[in-house]
């Protein structure tokens, strides 16, 4: 039986407090770890060492960097749109953190369990782009504006195949509750049933997180830093934190929908769950440090002319097969 935090803790406020603390702690530690991992992985791919000085294998380097970011002056450029500019780092961060709470990490435990879990995840993910556009619009900077426009166009384009791929899975599992979807994958994961769907989902997910080779909104060599050009110190760190947490969320969705979530032989559920999640993240790092960046129009062409028709066809075939089999 799946237990949630409110089942385990009788007081509802205490449960909320605990959940918030747990999620924040996970999001922060995870981002610290991922930044370190990214540095190490990229360094190894580039025949370098990466951080080695602070802590074992340089693991505390990111912690020290956070101290630096916290101590930096927050610079606000001239003529900004103040509410948008100041709210954007918070708006980008909050939904991403909320999304983390929805995944069952073991057969018997999830922080929150609702029957529309999958819808909520995509809804929270969709809110992030509003924040990115707020940042780009409010910064009074043309690079930021260009980056924000690209981000919105890209995310609208890639959200469609993403959701279409997920929809095919919910049709097979006959549920939008993430725990049910995981349970429905009996002895074999859905990636075997839905190989094309899994591929479409993963490509779109990399694009959704604005990671290379789809890092068009912040394309360093063209747009300086894209939508977060004018953000410094901890405001910038919040964007950074959101990006890395987003990577975890899309990987958690992929793990739950296609890789059988916490299921696996011998080892306990959470180990399998996080093992799969971090493997998917590693593949993202691998992609980033291998490929050059696509151009904006090529990216859009790829989404609208390749991924979306393919995802629709996949959905249609899935529906037909389900109907015939029933």
């Amino acid at each position, binding site marked *: 039986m799946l237990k949630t935090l409110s089942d385990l803790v009788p007081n509802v406020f205490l449960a909320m407090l605990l959940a918030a603390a747990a999620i924040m702690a996970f999001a922060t530690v995870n981002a610290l770890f991922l930044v370190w991992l990214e540095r190490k992985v*990229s360094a190894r*791919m*580039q*025949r*370098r060492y990466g951080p080695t000085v602070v802590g074992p294998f340089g693991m505390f380097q990111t912690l020290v960097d956070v101290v630096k970011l916290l101590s930096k002056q927050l610079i606000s450029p001239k003529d900004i749109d103040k509410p948008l500019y100041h709210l954007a780092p918070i708006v980008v961060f909050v939904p991403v953190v909320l999304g983390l709470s929805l995944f069952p990490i073991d057969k018997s435990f999830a922080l929150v369990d609702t029957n529309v879990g999958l819808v909520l995840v995509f809804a929270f993910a969709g809110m992030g782009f509003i924040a990115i556009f707020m940042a780009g619009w409010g910064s009074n900077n*043309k*690079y930021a504006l*260009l980056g924000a426009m690209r981000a919105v166009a890209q995310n609208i384009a890639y959200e469609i195949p993403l959701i279409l791929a997920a929809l095919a899975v919910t049709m097979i599992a006959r549920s939008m509750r993430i725990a049910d979807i995981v349970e429905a994958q009996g002895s074999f994961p859905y990636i075997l049933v839905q190989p094309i769907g899994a591929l479409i989902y993963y490509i779109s997910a990399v694009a959704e997180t604005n990671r*290379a*080779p789809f*890092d*068009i909104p912040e*394309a*360093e*060599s*063209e*747009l*300086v830093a894209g939508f977060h050009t004018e953000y410094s110190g901890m405001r910038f760190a919040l964007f950074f934190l959101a990006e890395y947490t987003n990577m975890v969320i899309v990987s958690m969705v992929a793990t739950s929908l296609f890789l059988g979530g916490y299921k696996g032989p011998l080892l306990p559920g959470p180990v399998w769950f996080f093992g799969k999640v971090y493997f998917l993240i590693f593949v993202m790092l691998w992609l980033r*440090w*291998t*490929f*050059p*960046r*696509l*151009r*904006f*129009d*090529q990216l859009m062409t790829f989404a609208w002319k390749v991924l979306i028709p393919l995802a629709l066809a996949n959905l249609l075939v899935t529906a037909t097969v389900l109907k015939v089999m029933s």
Partner: protein
Amino acid sequence: MTSDLHKPGAALAAGTSADPWATPPADPDGETYYLNMGPQHPSMHGVLRLLLELRGEEIVKCEPIIGYAHRAHEKMAENRNYMMFLPNTSRVDYLSGMIYNIAYCQAVEKMLAIEVPERAEHIRVIVCELNRVSSHLLWFGTFLLDLGGITPFLYSFDDREQILSILDRVTGSRLTYCYGRFGGVTEDVDKKFLDETTAFLARLRGRMAEYHALVTDNVIFRSRCEGVGVIDRETAIEYGVTGPTLRAAGVPYDVRRAEPYGIYDRFEFDIPTASGADNLARYYVRVAEMEQSMRIIEQAIAKIPDGPIMPEKALKRFKPDVGEHYFAVESARGQFGIYIVSDGSDVPFRIKLRTPSFSNLACMPDVLRGTMVADTIAILGSIDIVLPEVDR
């Protein structure tokens, strides 16, 4: 149009559309806006400023604004004697400093009709071609960086580092060499230098296969390069574009072959050309040129004779006859010309440096019109400009 930009305050404010000093927009409907790219921009090659007029992400008009790295090398030449100008030469283009340094020596030698010993000539060819390979390797890395691929950059810098170490042992500098002297070179090379160079060539051959696997056949790389930034034959010739950019347009012009200088007429090598005239063609030409440079180095190492590296009587102070002299070499970026006017004193009356990057950059407004912002950096990267060389 350009003159407006030089009014006071224009440089600071031209990026904003409300600016009264800004150039009149090419599109009067108000659908366009300005973007000031550079001089401070993470991937601008040096301090180039591009004033772009954009419609969405499409470039309507582009105006390169140069002069941010002007160091008055030509003026400095008029205030010091011929020998004292030597260290300046490698600083004009710090990425192929050796070629420039030797070229200046060769120009003065031509003016004074000095014979260069055989061994010195061979050494010059080896170090110049090594320098060309190192310049192309740097281009390879930064071009991929412009396209968003970070890893190849570090690979190629690893290889380039080997060249810098090899040259450092002989010349004493890693980048701004002052190795040439009128009549020869400063230091003789030893067997270790030749062995290291041979070993490096073997290593680079292996690495080139790796580069091709990682980059040349990459789908994203190709889609970013094919048909992008076409500088066709006519445009290239009109603007005086030289070097790999011209050869990528199908014109087999290389100063080493067209007007052989030094002992280049004794070596076997091909002039790689391509027909696409786009980013990919320029990529192919440069990669092929590295192979050709390696061929030249190997022949020079095989043939290098023993003997002196300077003429018996080295020149220090001299007064050339009144006259004008022009001497051109093929640098890593194209035709580098030195025009010396002598008034009979020991100080040059005027030295004019014809730098390839300046001409190559001049065609930018034509080439960039109608392309996307994202391609701007890619096209600039593929042309391989060095801004200090443009400004001098």
